[in-house]
Each structure stands twice: as structure tokens, then as C-alpha cells.
């Protein structure tokens, strides 16, 4: 850390300390060298040292680079990775100085340190051990990923024959790293101009590796911005192969050649490869589906995109998984046996099916998708994670599914589907498995958020028992479910879709949903439901929910009273959010912090400012905000600080209150606040007058506090000062209390 500064470095170098630490005779002989954190720290030290020419020279001369070479194969992955990254760092730094002036500098004229590293990489690439090749490839991948200077082109020119040569081995060594390297080179802007050899190497690799290995390369190639069309077609073909296989194996009769067949024409994969073993089949399908899911939303995804066939392939995969497919071919039967009951593939397929709504233009697909989704949701064999994915896919298809031209809002299939869906949803809300209840509630929340206004949806929802069941889940034994039920009920209530609970016996129930939620906020032992309640209340306030508008001040004051003493910092922070919304409604929006933002017309407060401030005092908002200002959790304090600054700025023009009130009152408030600051929050502020509050606000250095709070704790911990403090504290502690070491 000290050597990072040039003068400190020179000072340290005078005493031979650095040579002892990082020189050839240095670390390897230490007993503590066997501890991975020591080796990791040693690399960190070198990294911070290599920030200026002096340090770099020292590194080149001291023999530390050789130690780094050997650390690349360290038993600790963190150390190995750090060593490899540092090598790249050193290479880049030494080239940065020398090569800036002459971009076409040949490798032989490079600085000695860089030459040494490159020679090591070259030697490793020619090695017969896969581990060494992997290390060299990793160094190169990081280099091309980070450095985009012209010298990298020279480097690639020098090394690409060696890399291409790796493909001649059987089996190809270090395929993962090789894929990463090729993609890293292809992504580098230095190679934006067509580099034929690179594309050739990629094409060769796509054709010679196994389907499982080529998947990531194909995906990476398709994600490239500039890439020859022929290579893109080849890569897409590779990606689609497994699905084409499935379609071929399960086809009832040889249909007309589809796009999938054209794209994958000449593909070498047979069903036998796919079926070689259950784990291979499952792994390949999961990978393919995940890659396609990633590719689908990208703007550069291949065109034409065989949407219909992809949907058909995914549907048949889902049918193979749930055992409802009845293929006639023997390969199909074997696939059925392999995939039946396979949860991993089911999840991956449902994930992809969800994204397939994007860009679906043919609404003819919708019925078969709805049918398989409904079957998955209905099946008792579906595991909780599968159900969650199925709910997400249903949501995608409901909200984004295409409608035929000239059709009303929801499309022809949706109302029918909803009618079948709700009994299933009801069943899942009663599931003994909490994950299922939770997913069902989340689904309900999202659906009603988007469709709360749709007449069809409202009709089906209100005719079902779903709102009643959701209400009952507010008392679920599982806190996550209670939290989701709170969010769902909040959403339903906002849309006027809540059903009155008819379960007698709870006095809170008679007060309606607000009472029930307040009850949760005050007594629930878990944080999640309480957080959910405060979020719902904030949303209700923001959207002027009928129950809130009745008596907003009472509502906000009641909530704050409960929130202020909550042990969960997120609940307290959310309480401040509620106050913010309330203040924005009473005092107007805060001034935009961005100087270019469009200025909104100023909202005139409904009543004169002094009166508003008095109300705020009565609601004990200041009490709450001051307490939060000294909160031990930084986000709460930060939010409180912003809030108080907003209040101070808003009240600035209030001339009637400029003069401070009784100075003794102000002094007592300030004294109390000081005590709060040191953690003694027992004493209340008492009833406050607006004048006193304003005076107290003005006397505080809120801006200073704001900037202090904005600094991360990392900032403090990583300063040299903090390091010294730690060293001293450790030394002092070691003498007194060995057990309590740092």
C-alpha cells in the first residue's frame, strides 16, 4: 500500500526491505508462505507496487515475475487467478510505456519484462500438459479482454499459429479456456477489421468439438457485433442441433422440412450422441435451452429466428419430461425414458418458453403453449421450483402473448385459460409446501398489477376464492409467504379486488385490510412481512389508496410510530420513504438534482407552510427523522439526512419562522440530539415547536454529514491510516487478549 506512492517506494527501497520481501531470496523460504492468504497478500503487494516505472523496473529485476509464473499453478484458485491477472497487468504496463510511440513495434523490440512473459506464454502453449496450456490461455484471454492497444494485434499475430495448432491435438486440450480466448480476441476492438485466421479457427473449432463444448463458443460467436454471416449460420446450427434432434426423434410423421432442419443441415449429431447417457443428454439440453434463452432477447439474435419450431421443440421437451408425449419411434421412446421426470430440463425449458413470447407473432401457438403450461401447473408431480418457473412462463405468455388482428384486449384464448387457471391457483394457495404458496402469491401479485383493470380478469378473479385465500395467507406460519401475501393483498386492494375476510375471531379483521396489515407491522416476529407492509403502505400513499386518503395524517403517524422502533433497518428505511412520499404530497416535489432535468411546475402546498410544519411536528415526523439520522445502519442515516435537507430547503423561504424560538428550547433539543448521536436514545425530544426544529436544523452540518455518509466503509478500511490503526490495535491486543485478535 505504501509502495504505491512513488516517494514512499523510493524510501522503502533504500532500506533493502523490498528486495527482502519481493526479491529472489524472498518469500519462498518463509514458513508462512504455505498460508494462501499470505501468498495472496504478497501478490496484492506486488500489484500496488507496480504502479510507476520505478516499481515496474524493480519487478523486472527482482525475479518476482518468475515467482508469479510458478504461482499460476497455485493450489489456491484465488492465488492462481491473482497471479495470472498480475502478469497481464505487468505486461500491459510495460508495453504501455514503450509501445505508445510505435504501434507496429515488433515483438523482438519489446521491453525485457514483456518479452519474458510472452516467451513464458509461448513455451506454455507448446507444453504437453493441459494445465500449463490452460494457464497460458487464461493469461492471453485476460490480456485481450483488457488491453485494446495496437501491440495486442502484434501479440496475436505472433501467437495465433500456436493457438491454432492446439486444435490439431486429439483430444483438444483446455477447450474451455480456448473458447474463452477466441471469444475474447473476437470481442477486442483491435480485431474489428476482418481477421480471417481468427474466423477460420473459430469455424474449425465449431466443427471439431463435442456439442457440449461448442455450445458456449456458438453462443459467444452469435453475440458478436461483427462476424461473417457464414460463421453465424454455422454457430446457430450448432446451437439448434439438440432441439432438431429432439424434433426428428419425436416427429409423428416426416413433415415438411422446417427452418430448423435447414439451419442444421449437415449437422453431424445423431440422436445416439444425444442419448449416449442420461446425464449427457440432460446437461446438453439444459445448456442449449439456457443459451437460447440468453440469445433470444438480444438485438443481434440470428434472423430468421425459427420461432414456431422452437416453441414446438420446447413443448415436446416439456411433454417428454412429464411423460405425456407418446412418440412412435424407438429413439423417441428412449428419449421419453431418459427425460421423464427430469426437473432440471423441465425448469430450463420453462425458462426458455417464457422468453419465447418475445417476438412471437403467430397467435396460433398460444393454445398449445397454454395447454402444456396448464398441465404442468396441474400435475401433482411438478416440484416447487418447476411450478415457480411455470408461473413465470404463464405470466410472460399472458401478458405478452400476441393477439390476432382485430381482436379485443385479451385475445381469444385468454379468458378460457384464466377460467381454468384459477382453480389451479386456488389449489396451490393451499399447498402444504410453502414455496408453492409463495410462488402462487407472487404470480397473483404480478398478474393483478398488470391486469387489474381488465374486465375479464376481474370477473374471473372475483368469482373465485383466490382473494379470500390470499387474505388467509396473511397468517401463514412461513414468513416469506406472509410477506408475499401482504404484497398480493396490497396490490389486490389497490385495484379494488380484495374480498372481505369472513374468518371471525380476530378483532383486526373487522378493521379491514389496513387493520390487518398494521397488526402484522406491530407484532410479526419476522422482518420480511413487516418490510412488505411498509412497502405496501408507501405504494398506497403514493397512489392515494381510498383507505389512506380518509385520514392520511393519522395513517402516516400511526405507521411511523410502529416503524420507528423496528429492529429491522429496512423497515425503518422504508418508513423514511413513506415520509418522503408524504412530504412530497404536502410540500411539493424535491428540486431535481440533475441540472438538465425538466423543471416541474411547482406544487403549492395545500396550506401555509407554518401550519404544515406544525402538523409535521405533531405527527412526530421530526422525532422520527432525527432518530433515523443517528441510526447505526448507514442507509437509514443517509435517507434521513436527505429528508432533513429537503425539509430545511423547503422551509427556507418561510420568513415567519426565521427567528429562532426560545433559545433555551433550542439548546435543550440540541443537547438531546447530541446524546442521541452518541447512542443514548432513551430520552424523547418531547413536543416540538416548528421554530425550534428549524433552528436545530440550521445549526446542524447536514451537508457534511451527507458527504461523510456517502463514503463507503470500504473507503475508510482501505486507507493507510486504517491499516496503521489495525496494526497498532493488533499489537496492543495481542499482549492483552490473544483470543480476540483482529
Amino acid at each position, binding site marked *: 500500500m505504501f509502495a504505491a506512492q512513488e516517494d514512499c517506494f523510493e524510501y522503502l527501497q533504500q532500506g533493502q526491505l523490498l528486495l527482502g520481501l519481493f526479491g529472489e531470496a524472498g518469500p519462498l523460504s518463509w514458513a508462512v508462505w504455505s498460508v494462501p492468504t499470505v501468498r495472496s497478500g504478497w501478490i496484492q503487494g506486488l500489484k500496488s507496487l507496480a504502479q510507476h516505472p520505478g516499481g515496474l523496473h524493480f519487478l523486472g529485476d527482482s525475479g518476482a515475475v518468475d515467482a508469479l509464473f510458478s504461482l499460476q499453478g497455485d493450489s489456491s484458485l484465488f492465488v492462481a487467478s491473482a497471479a495470472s491477472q498480475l502478469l497481464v497487468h505487468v505486461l500491459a504496463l510495460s508495453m504501455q510505456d514503450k509501445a505508445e510511440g510505435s504501434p507496429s513495434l515488433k515483438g523482438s523490440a519489446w521491453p525485457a519484462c514483456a518479452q519474458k512473459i510472452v516467451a513464458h506464454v509461448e513455451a506454455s502453449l507448446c507444453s504437453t500438459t493441459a494445465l500449463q496450456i490452460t494457464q497460458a490461455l487464461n493469461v492471453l484471454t485476460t490480456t485481450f479482454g483488457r488491453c485494446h492497444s495496437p501491440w495486442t494485434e502484434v501479440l496475436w499475430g505472433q501467437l495465433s499459429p500456436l493457438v491454432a495448432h492446439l486444435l490439431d491435438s486429439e483430444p483438444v486440450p483446455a477447450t474451455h479456456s480456448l473458447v474463452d480466448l477466441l471469444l475474447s480476441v473476437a470481442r477486442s476492438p483491435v480485431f474489428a477489421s476482418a481477421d480471417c485466421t481468427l474466423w477460420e479457427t473459430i469455424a474449425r473449432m465449431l466443427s471439431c468439438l463435442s456439442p457440449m463444448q461448442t455450445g458456449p463458443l456458438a453462443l459467444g460467436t452469435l453475440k458478436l457485433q461483427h462476424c461473417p454471416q457464414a460463421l453465424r449460420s454455422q454457430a446457430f446450427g450448432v446451437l439448434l442441433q439438440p432441439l432438431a434432434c429432439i424434433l426428428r426423434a419425436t416427429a409423428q410423421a416426416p413433415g415438411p422440412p422446417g427452418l430448423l432442419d435447414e439451419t442444421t443441415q449437415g449437422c453431424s449429431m445423431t440422436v445416439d450422441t444425444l442419448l449416449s447417457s442420461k446425464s449427457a443428454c440432460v446437461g446438453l439440453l439444459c445448456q442449449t435451452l439456457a443459451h437460447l434463452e440468453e440469445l433470444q432477447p438480444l438485438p443481434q439474435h440470428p434472423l430468421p429466428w425459427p420461432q414456431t419450431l422452437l416453441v414446438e421443440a420446447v413443448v415436446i421437451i416439456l411433454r417428454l419430461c412429464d*411423460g405425456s408425449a407418446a412418440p412412435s419411434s424407438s429413439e423417441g421412446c428412449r428419449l421419453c425414458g431418459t427425460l421423464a421426470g427430469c426437473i432440471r430440463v423441465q425448469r430450463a425449458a420453462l425458462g426458455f418458453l417464457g422468453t419465447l413470447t418475445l417476438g412471437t407473432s403467430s397467435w396460433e401457438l398460444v393454445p398449445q403453449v397454454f395447454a402444456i403450461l396448464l398441465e404442468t401447473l396441474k400435475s401433482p*408431480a*411438478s416440484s416447487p421450483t418447476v411450478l415457480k418457473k411455470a408461473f413465470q412462463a404463464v405470466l410472460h405468455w399472458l401478458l405478452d402473448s400476441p393477439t390476432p388482428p382485430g381482436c379485443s384486449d385479451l385475445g381469444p384464448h385468454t379468458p378460457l385459460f384464466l377460467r381454468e387457471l384459477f382453480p389451479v391457483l386456488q389449489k396451490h394457495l*393451499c399447498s*402444504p409446501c410453502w414455496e408453492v404458496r409463495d410462488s402462487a402469491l407472487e404470480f397473483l401479485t404480478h398478474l393483478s398489477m398488470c391486469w387489474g383493470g381488465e374486465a375479464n380478469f376481474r370477473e374471473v378473479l372475483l368469482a373465485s376464492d383466490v382473494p379470500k385465500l390470499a387474505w388467509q395467507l396473511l397468517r401463514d406460519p412461513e414468513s416469506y409467504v406472509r410477506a408475499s401475501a401482504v404484497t398480493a393483498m396490497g396490490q389486490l386492494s389497490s385495484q379494488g379486488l380484495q374480498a372481505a375476510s369472513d374468518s371471525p375471531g380476530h378483532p383486526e379483521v373487522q378493521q379491514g385490510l389496513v387493520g390487518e396489515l398494521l397488526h402484522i407491522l406491530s407484532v410479526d416476529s419476522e422482518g420480511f412481512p413487516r418490510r412488505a407492509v411498509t412497502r405496501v403502505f408507501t405504494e398506497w400513499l403514493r397512489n392515494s389508496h381510498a383507505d389512506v386518503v380518509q385520514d392520511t395524517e393519522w395513517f402516516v403517524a400511526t405507521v411511523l410510530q410502529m416503524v420507528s422502533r423496528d429492529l429491522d433497518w429496512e423497515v425503518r428505511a422504508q418508513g423514511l420513504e413513506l415520509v418522503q412520499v408524504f412530504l412530497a404530497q404536502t410540500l411539493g416535489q424535491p428540486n431535481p438534482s440533475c441540472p438538465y432535468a425538466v423543471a416541474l411546475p411547482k406544487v403549492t402546498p395545500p396550506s401555509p407552510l407554518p401550519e404544515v410544519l406544525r402538523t409535521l411536528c405533531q405527527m412526530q415526523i421530526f422525532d422520527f427523522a432525527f432518530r433515523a439520522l443517528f441510526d447505526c445502519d448507514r442507509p437509514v442515516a443517509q435517507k434521513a439526512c436527505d429528508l432533513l435537507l429537503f425539509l430545511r430547503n423547503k422551509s427556507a423561504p418561510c420568513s415567519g419562522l426565521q427567528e429562532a424560538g426560545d433559545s433555551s428550547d433550542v439548546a435543550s433539543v440540541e443537547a438531546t440530539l447530541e446524546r442521541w448521536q452518541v447512542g443514548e436514545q432513551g430520552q424523547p425530544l418531547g413536543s416540538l415547536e416548528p421554530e425550534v426544529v428549524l433552528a436545530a436544523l440550521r445549526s446542524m452540518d447536514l451537508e457534511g454529514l451527507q458527504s461523510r455518509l456517502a463514503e463507503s466503509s470500504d473507503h475508510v478500511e482501505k486507507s493507510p491510516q486504517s491499516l496503521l490503526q489495525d496494526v497498532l490495535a493488533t499489537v496492543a491486543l495481542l499482549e492483552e487478549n490473544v483470543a480476540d485478535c483482529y
Partner: protein
Amino acid sequence: MKLYCLSGHPTLPCNILKFKSTTIMLDCGLDMTSALNFLPLPLVQSPRLCNLPGWSLKDGNAFLDKELKECSGHVFVDSVPEFCLPETELIDLSTVDVILISNYHCMMALPYITEHTGFTGTVYATEPTVQIGRLLMEELVNFIERVPKAQSASLWKNKDIQRLLPSPLKDAVEVSTWRRCYTMQEVNSALSKIQLVGYSQKIELFGVVQVTPLSSGYALGSSNWIIQSHYEKVSYVSGSSLLTTHPQPMDQASLKNSDVLVLTGLTQIPTANPDGMVGEFCSNLALTIRNGGNVLVPCYPSGVIYDLLECLYQYIDSAGLSSVPFYFISPVANSSLEFSQIFAEWLCHNKQSKVYLPEPPFPHAELIQTNKLKHYPSIHGDFSNDFRQPCVVFTGHPSLRFGDVVHFMELWGKSSLNTVIFTEPDFSYLEALAPYQPLAMKCIYCPIDTRLNFIQVSKLLKEVQPLHVVCPEQYTQPPPAQSHRMDLMIDCQPPPMSYRRAEVLALPFKRRYEKIEIMPELADSLVPMEIKPGISLATVSAVLHTKDNKHVLQPPPRPAQPASGKKRKRMSDDVPDCKVLKPLLSGSIPVEQFVQSLEKHGFSDIKVEDTAKGHIVLLQEAETLIQIEEDSTHIICDNDEMLRVRLRDLVLKFLQKF
């Protein structure tokens, strides 16, 4: 070794194994699906059932209308339900030495076998199996005897008439052998022939075979059996489970190294995962109750009900159902609930450890204590006073043909608010419901079968590696309704041998060794000689004494004293002559050296021919042939004994003697 297959039902097996002069019956299952062809026996007279129209032939002939009734297009026999017995003609059942019972569901035909076939052997079963088996039989007898039926239909069974009947009556097999339920007296007599055994206990059968029960993990006291002699081992796996439910886990390790593994009693619903089904059960139960409906669960009085009650114990509070009454109605409800709590040693580890706390192993004790679960012997009496709706009723029989369940089906069938949830996999729910149609009540099918599925079987077989697998034919092909599901069948190498009802299988398995003991004093006198490193041989002369299938080598009696009296001499007449022993030879003859040795001894014109088994040395001049093979040497010469002896001695020089 032969296997006689007396039952066609894969989960209610009844097989006979003939092994080393013993005849062992493996399980004694009773196929009760035949009862589905009969009209239900209502506990309270049902006008609907009484007024069903009689069935008449197409030509209007109504001579069967007293015996057969029609309900919603199905025809039922109006008589006391009858059951399909195991095959009794295939083998004389009086020759059966022992019957091994694997679990309480597989012993329901026991009274028919032990009381009516001349059986004189012993039945082996664990204590929970016997106790709970008794409860199941008692319930069955009670259900049928408490509603005596005046008429008994038998006309329809006539083969010529049966042919005219509609399906499924037309296709019912072996109707002539269908029998009415046994009596309590027969049950008691049958059960008195049972000898109790514990897991891993070794039981000797006539000194020939040893049988051992092993935990099978399926039900309280359920067992698989090992039947072994010294050199042969047969495993009988019936109704096993690898899931963590209440019983002790399955003992797989002891099944290793079997020559034959007979595999029966796999799950009847291979596509249904029991966890998912329990979830389905709970959700539907809660939905019905919340809508104000009642839930009816037709079930056996023991088994899955314990697990269901435990699930509900955890679920009802969270689902807000704590105020809903749960009723368990069975003549043996009380005994079943109490028995389950006292068989601690037969329970899974988790439940066993509760006993030491001390707490009851099953939480249904707490449900009873808090009045959430109430149990009654029948709907008559206390139950009618306590009955409160909406409620959940667990009651038998799962076939819906007899028992209190018939009453609830009649009572609740008309309202769509109510739900019947089928959890027992033994009966087709659609067939069970047929005589109640039209039915407004909701029906949910959640079969919970914890027995092994095909994935588990394939793992088990990989683990225990039997030489041969024998199983019912149903397990060697995908289920008929899902013919493409190649994963729903047993897949092993070599392929399993399959059996069907009334078939006799010769098991592919040869006995090669028999164990013989040597008396210590005889063993003392042996002088082994090392032939090869690690292999020593000794010759032994002894008397082989065989009694009770045990073989012992005893020292031979001393040679008779020549000078002894007459009396003694007579005694020694019985003793076999002990001739002077010739030495035993070992080793091999190196042909080249042998030829050299022949030449040295004056033989010439020697030719050696290689044969498939060794060599032939030809002495052309002497017209003699020496045939040397791995295990024999022959000298063939024409009546020249002198030459033969010379050659023999030359051969012997190359061999070791002892």
C-alpha cells in the same frame, strides 16, 4: 429349484419356492379387486341401491335379474362380495412346509390356505405384521358380517351364462374359485399357526435352509426374506420402500450376492411421486373444507393413514383448519392408533428416539388428546352425537363396497361441495365409484404408494447385483396405457425371468456344492502336503455320516483285531474294507523331456503329434501310443504288459506322489 406362481397380482403375491427338499410359500396375498363387481353393502338401508333395476339379456330374458343389478350402465352382482384366491390346483398345498409373510397386506389369504388345504406347517412373520394383519382381517370380517345378506348369487358364475354378461363380468377370471370372506374363527386359527420372528433372526428349516427376515422399509414390521443354504442364496423382495416414512429403513446390504432375487410388490403407480400426492391431498382437503364441504378418505386402518395424519398434524394449523374435526371410523381404529405407538423397535430412527424422551412416536396421539382427531368403531353410537360438519372422515373399505365408507358415499355423494380423496392405490377409483353414479361429489385421485419405483429398482439391482432376477410379467413391459414409457419396466442384465399366474418356473440355477464337516479328531490326523505355493492337499479316509441334511466325515473304525473273539469279528463285518491306498499323483508331463527319456531308454522312431487336448507320442516300431492330456494319460499297446509297465514307470517319474 422351482417357483410355483399362484397369484397374478404383482403386489399381492403368493409364490411357492421348492428349494433343497423344502417347500416354502412366499406371501399369501388376497386379490380383493373381485369385490368391485359386487354391489356395495350399505350399513343403513339405501333406497337407491334397493331400487336398482335388475339386469336382463338383450333378448329380454330376465332370469338373472335377482342376481345382477344395473347402475348407470354398469352391471353388478347383488350378493356378498367374494374374493379371488391364490391358485390351489397347481401344487398340493398340504406339502407346504412354511409360509413366509412379508407384510400385513400380503397375508390376507392366509385363513383360506391354512384352514382349507391340509396345511400343517408353520407361518413366519414379524409381530407388527401379525398384529396389524389381524386388525385388517378383523375389520374385513366385521364389515361383511355386520350386514348379513340373505341371498347369494351363483347362477351368473356358470360358464355358459358368464359368456353372455357384459364386461367386466364377462372377462372376470376363475370366478368359480371366488370365495366369500372367512370367519373370525378361521382367522384366529390361522393366526395361531404363526411364529413371531425379528429382523435378522436366522431360522433353520430342517437343517437344510436358513431363512432370515430383513427390514423392507414399507410398513410397520414389513420384511424381505433371505432364503439360503451354505452355497446358495435366494432373496425375496416384496413391498419395499426407500422413502423416509415411519418404518425402519430398508436393509439393502444383506441382499447382496444373491443367486436369485425374486422381486414383487413394486409401486402400483410408478408415475406418481408420493410427496406430490401428499401435497395434492392436503391442498384439495383444505379447499373443500374452506368452501364448507366435507372430505371423505377411503382407507385401510393402518399404513399410509399414519403418515397422512402426521402431514395433517403439521398442515392444519398453517392452513387455518385447526377447528375442523377429523374422524377415523373403523372397528379397529382404536387398536390401530394405539398399536402404532407401541412398536417402537420397528420404527424409523427418528421415531424411535422420541420414545426415550418420552414422547409418543406418532403425533396423532396429540391430535387425539386435543380432540382434533376422534375415532369410533362405527357410525352407530357415539359418532352420531359428536358428528359435526364440515369435517374430514377416514374410513374403510377403499373398495367402497363395504364398511362405513358406503354410508358416507350415499350421504355426501349428492353435493358438489364434498370431496372424496382416494389415497390407497389398490383399487381403480373409477371402478370403485361406478355403483354410486351419477355422483355430484368431487373426486380426487391421490394414490400414495411408497413402494419402490423403477428408478429405485434399477439402483437397487446395480447395488446388490443378483445373478438372476425373477419378477411378475407386468414388470417386464411398460404399462399397457403407456406403452412408450420404456422407463417404466425393469431393465437389468441378464433380462429378468417373468412369471404369471399358474406358471411354474425352473430357476436357472444349479447347485454345485454341499458343505461337509470333518470331526476334529479326523482333522487332527490329516497331514497336508504343499502341492503348489498356497495349495496343500491331504488324503482322507473316513465314513460319511448324513443325518437331518447335515453331512459329517467321521474317522473310520479301526481295522478289526484278527485275534479277537467271534463276537467282535461279527461286528467288524459291517465295517467297509479299508484297502491299502494307492498314492495320488500330481503334476504335468513335459513332452520334450519325456521323449528324451524314452530315447534314453532305447525307444526310437518316436513321433509326437499335437492334439486339441494335449499330445500323442507314437512309438511306431512298438506300435504303441501314449496319449497325454491335461487330466489323463493313456498308454495303448497290444497286449504287451511288460512294455506297458515300463512305459508307465517312465511316465510316473515325471509326477509327484503323495
